[in-house]
């Protein structure tokens, strides 16, 4: 049994000092993996895996995601303003590990301070590019398209178009892991929302109960929803003991939420206009509602990243993402059924 001695002492060998320029790509990957670094944008994918492209799919462009498209979240902005050099350092390490020829950071134009800070820290070959404010440009496929013009095909990965994308927070964590042997034990996040009295960007130890973080910032008792993550793709929670985990990019408390009405589809087409993948949420939702959806594959159900832009703009208040989630479940079930039937003699 492990007992907490509550002394908060560093383990032996941490922190250390290493020169990443003297390390081979393999050593870099080992350092990152051993530190437990995962994607800090929310998806928490193991960073080490993203640093080892296969030989058949070489990477020529390394992208840092400083877009932060979710409303309310400002942690990436803050990191870029206060820790720009470490982030750039992280990007340089990534470039060395994957052997990229081009390094570019994407920042949306509503963060001019971050843009300036990063430009100052960069220099030389690292490009800092300012993008229009557009949701969900922070998702990797639209971001890759915006910065390189390449479209990642459905079902494929950025590696398939020669690109690797990391969040600026991940780059910061990679820098700490490689140059200071620092494991991922704390993460930056935003605490915000109209029901938080003192919103803040904090660096929080992983495992801290969300309740403690919120208590630190003050909670309005009129709160209606508490979210882990952003307001578009975050998850509503109700238990204060839920811990901050590696993928928690934000903690939000909202007292004003949209009315819970779902009206008929008026075929306005706004959902199609905002979908980053050209999806057909309108058709899908109507078909699911009518129980008439038989063929999901051609509607690309599985490629939907559930960004929620469609639900956001729907005048009828239809939660289209929820319909897609339902369709995914049914499609997966049917696939399984089909597969089992194929196996029968």
């Amino acid at each position, binding site marked *: 049994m492990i007992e907490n001695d509550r002394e908060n002492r560093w383990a032996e060998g941490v922190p250390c000092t290493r020169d990443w320029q003297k390390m081979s790509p393999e050593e870099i990957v080992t350092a990152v993996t051993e530190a437990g670094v995962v994607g800090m944008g929310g998806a928490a994918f193991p960073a080490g895996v993203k640093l080892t492209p296969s030989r058949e799919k070489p990477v020529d462009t390394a992208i840092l995601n400083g877009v932060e498209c979710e*409303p309310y979240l400002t942690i990436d902005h803050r990191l870029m303003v206060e820790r720009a050099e470490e982030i750039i350092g992280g990007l340089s390490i990534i470039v060395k590990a994957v052997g990229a020829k081009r390094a570019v950071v994407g920042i949306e134009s509503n963060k001019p301070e971050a843009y300036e800070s990063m430009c100052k820290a960069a220099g030389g070959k690292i490009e800092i590019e300012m993008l229009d404010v557009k949701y969900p440009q922070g998702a990797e*496929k639209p971001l890759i*398209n915006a910065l390189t013009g*390449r*479209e*990642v*095909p*459905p079902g*494929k990965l950025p590696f*398939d*178009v020669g690109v690797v994308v990391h969040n600026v927070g991940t780059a910061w964590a990679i820098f700490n892991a490689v140059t200071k042997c620092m494991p991922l034990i704390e993460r930056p996040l935003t605490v915000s929302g109209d029901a938080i009295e003192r919103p803040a960007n904090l660096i929080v130890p992983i495992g801290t*109960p969300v*309740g*403690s973080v*919120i*208590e630190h910032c003050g*909670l309005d008792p009129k*709160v*209606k*929803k*508490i*979210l882990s993550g952003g*307001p*578009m*793709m*975050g*998850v*509503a*929670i*109700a*238990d*204060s*003991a839920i811990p901050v985990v590696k993928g928690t990019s934000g903690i939000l408390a*909202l007292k004003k*939420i*949209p009315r819970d009405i779902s*009206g*008929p589809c*008026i*075929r*306005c*087409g*706004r959902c*199609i*206009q905002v979908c980053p*993948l*050209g999806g*057909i949420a309108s058709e899908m939702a109507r078909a699911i509602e009518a129980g008439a959806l038989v063929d999901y594959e051609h509607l690309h159900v599985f*490629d939907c990243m559930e960004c*929620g832009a469609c*639900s*956001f*703009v*729907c*005048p009828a*208040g239809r*939660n289209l*993402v*929820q319909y897609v*989630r339902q369709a995914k479940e049914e499609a997966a079930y049917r696939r399984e059924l089909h597969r089992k039937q194929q196996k029968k003699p």
Partner: protein
Amino acid sequence: MNKNFPSNLIVGPGPHISGAEPIPKIMWSVVIALVPALVFSIANFGWYALVVTLVAAISSVATEWAVQKFRNVPVTIGDGSAAITGVLLAFTLPPDIPLYIPVIGSVFAIGIAKQAFGGLGMNIWNPALAGRAFLSAAYSGSIFMPKWPMLAKIFSGDIRSIDAITAATPCAVLKYAPLTIFDHYRLWDLFVGRIPGCIGETSAAALLIGAVFLMIRKIINWRLPFAYVLTVMILVVAFPVRAADGTLMAFWQQSFWADPLFVFERSLAHALSGGLVIGAFFMATDMVTSPLTKKGQVVFGIGCGILVAIIRLYGGYPEGVCYSILIMNTLVWAIDRLTMPGFFGEHAHA
């Protein structure tokens, strides 16, 4: 340590914020956009125009209430969509129509053309136009009248009939004696609307005020009406016509281009006549019955334009807007299928 959250937190699926404009706001904005045309209509045709409009709007709302009660579904008359149908239907009727006709038209438009299909969002045809088409068939004598009244002076209350002297609405003149159009009506009159015609459709100016308002609010897209009107303008002079004395007028003749300004003015006269402006900006743009994508909407507009040109120049009616839109409504499913955006990365060369 365990601080408890309030026990009534809502735990539901995201997204947890919305920036959408609710349906009632959209619908009532369209009603507001039609007010300038209504005001002009009262000035041009008298108070009776307002009476007809109110009767149609009230009948539409009442029909929707009754049908929804009968169907045992939630009553949604507050969303403004039935009111719009009533107002638009009234705008397509002659200014001295007996009141029972808009009532019957509204019952058909809402009861059959909208509710029988399943209510808001489920209808294939524009309900106001479907109502108008029904009335044209059922009460053609009252709809296609020989005499068209107008107030002698605006707001004067003194109704007089334009009958034997000029004998026709601008659309009729353009059909039977196109080269004489400017002997009867000046372009400016056609634009402002001090001409005989249906209640809401004479004043392009008043309608455009409302249309611009809707375009700024992003409720209607400029592509559809522009494609529609532009197509009409081009085709009504591009298609050959026979003048009253039997001679053929066509753009491949040199005599056609003798006065190019006149050609353009005729084209503009067509655009400002009949129900084209109200049709292009308020009827064709109805979200439910028009295509989902911007590309589809352009195709729809062009299709409507082609049909209007054909009907006005060669068909039996002097006015083709109503039927052109209804016919194109029937094809929207096909247009949608053909103009869906390609899926991200489908034609990528990975």
